[in-house]
């Protein structure tokens, strides 16, 4: 693809997916400064990748793959800060370290709980849940992540069950 086509595709992708990429970065990096670095790295990765974009998959699938893969590299590069390590969603246990409700509003509590679960997950499961939260259909999540749609559905179900149980008064996973 020529330079102007690449620039046009990149501008289009930023217009369509910019806010979603910012939310995605929040699911990968809690530190604001490092998150800004990640957002910038994702933009550079996307622009570079469009040199090879041939339309074999949709623009959204391409954008999600490149952005998530760059975020995975970011996770691996900064993994020493994550002393607990990551796990699959089936092994997440929030009983001891879920955010305390205190006086936060219900939606703040819910968002904190969502982020606390996502923060524990290894890249494949993290990507599935972040794409689900963006409203991406299971079939496309499967295409982006390389996981079967059935497995995607199961993991999303587990995620919602965990949220419901933990959010219930006195509840724990």
């Amino acid at each position, binding site marked *: 693809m020529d330079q102007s086509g690449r*620039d046009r595709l*990149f*501008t289009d992708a*930023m217009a369509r997916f*910019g*806010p*979603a*990429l*910012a*939310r995605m*970065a*929040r699911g990968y990096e809690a530190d604001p400064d490092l998150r*800004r670095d990640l*957002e*910038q790295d994702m*933009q*550079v*990765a996307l*622009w*570079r*990748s469009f*040199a*090879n*974009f041939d339309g074999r998959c949709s623009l959204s699938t*391409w954008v999600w*793959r*490149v952005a*998530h*893969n*760059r975020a*995975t*590299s970011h996770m*691996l590069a900064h993994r020493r800060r994550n002393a607990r390590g990551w796990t*699959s969603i089936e092994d997440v246990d929030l009983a001891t370290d879920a955010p305390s409700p205190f006086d936060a509003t*219900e*939606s703040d509590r*819910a*968002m904190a709980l*969502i982020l606390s679960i996502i923060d524990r997950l*290894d*890249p*494949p499961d993290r*990507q599935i849940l972040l794409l689900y*939260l*963006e*409203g991406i259909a299971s079939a496309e999540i499967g*295409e*982006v*992540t*390389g*996981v*079967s749609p059935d*497995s995607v*559905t*199961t*993991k999303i179900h587990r995620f*919602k069950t965990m*949220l*419901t149980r933990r*959010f219930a008064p006195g509840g724990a996973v």
Partner: protein
Amino acid sequence: MTDFSDDARLHGLWQGGDAVLAPLPLDEIKRRAARFGDIVQRRNRREYIAAAIVLAGFSLYAIILPGALLKIGSLLVIVGVLVVVWQLARRTSRPDPDAEAADVRAFYRARLVREEHMLARVGLWYLAPLLPGLLTFMAGEAILLGRTDALGLTLFLVLPLLLFGGIWLLNHRAAAMLRARIDRIDRAAKPGDSE
């Protein structure tokens, strides 16, 4: 009470925030993209600086220290460090920009496999090249200080070996953890297996 079973409400909650991506100017993106090949070089810079310090130190030892064993040991350490630096450069090749468009599972698995290979073979490419020089140098030091008794040999030869053994074990443990993670990814990808 938030209803987490309702997909639309959950999506609304996630997307309702004020997340905004600060756009980089296109010129800046192109400037950074042109530097992409430097990423690995920057990552390895610390190792290269450490290697340069070791090389300078043992070059000096080879010149000023007395005794054949200390001089030969110093030269062997220098050769060993050069082998390690070469292996580091070879094993951390330039990132493949095409790989980032692969599906996420394949990309993550490939990264883990590459790291697992490096850790599992650390004895071969990192420890073994340094060992002959280190042992020769330490033997020379034991002789120079007149510590060829059992305690002296333990201090000068066995302790460094134990240190290397510890490094080898730690790396193998890390490699085993990565292998478990790779196995989990493979299990999750099996058709019809929804875990």
